[in-house]
């Protein structure tokens, strides 16, 4: 289960490197001004690193023994805060992106991601009540949201002929 939780976030690391390389090599050309996107990539890189670090500490603490309740609570909140940081980065990108078309694409991606993850959560939740599927911890819906973000990019490609800036 731990590996399953770590895998999606670890997979974002090469994605972040690739995105940063692409933004740098584009010389602010075909990817627009790119300043807001570079900030976004850096922020996501920082928060993904914090997620991996805090998650590692949480697992290490649970292996080492039975930490007190306050410490378990504190350590359990940290990865969630890092994920909130990634979502905040998407919000800042929408605020800081000066290119109205690219901003619209990110907003569209976010709406697709939200619709996708909430729909998936609703269906899974009721299937869980009906004992059709196994229990899924709530943090999986954030991962579903990020997957939906990718679906949103595909949708943008179909509708507007571009994947967008991300």
């Amino acid at each position, binding site marked *: 289960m731990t590996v399953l939780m770590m895998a999606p976030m670890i997979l974002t690391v090469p994605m972040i490197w690739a995105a940063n390389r692409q933004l740098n090599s584009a010389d602010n*050309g*075909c*990817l*627009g*001004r790119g300043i807001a996107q570079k900030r976004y990539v850096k922020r996501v890189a920082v928060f993904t690193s914090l997620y991996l670090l805090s998650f590692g500490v949480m697992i290490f603490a649970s292996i080492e023994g039975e930490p007190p309740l306050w410490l378990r609570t504190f350590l359990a909140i940290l990865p969630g805060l890092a994920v909130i940081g990634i979502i905040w980065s998407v919000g800042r990108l929408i605020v800081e992106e*000066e*290119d*109205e*078309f*690219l901003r*619209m694409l990110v907003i569209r991606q976010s709406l697709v991601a939200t619709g996708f993850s909430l729909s998936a959560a609703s269906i899974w939740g009721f299937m869980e009540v009906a004992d059709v599927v196994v229990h899924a911890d709530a943090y999986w819906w954030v991962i579903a949201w990020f997957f939906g973000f990718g679906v949103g990019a595909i949708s943008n490609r179909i*509708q*507007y*002929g*571009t994947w*967008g*800036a991300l």
Partner: protein
Amino acid sequence: MKNRLKVLRAENDWSQQDLADRLGVSRQSVNAIETGRYDPSLPLAFSIADIFNMRIEDIFQRETDG
């Protein structure tokens, strides 16, 4: 909405990137506007009109207009 952006750009011998740089937007934006996939905001439409020294309605027309 349809527009004459591609023709006007060609008359000035500008690439999509050239026009994008002049407008301060991405090349994708210019491409999306040219192909009619995206209708620009009023401020961006004014910027486009200013660059070509034309009125907005001389560049952008409703689909129903001849």
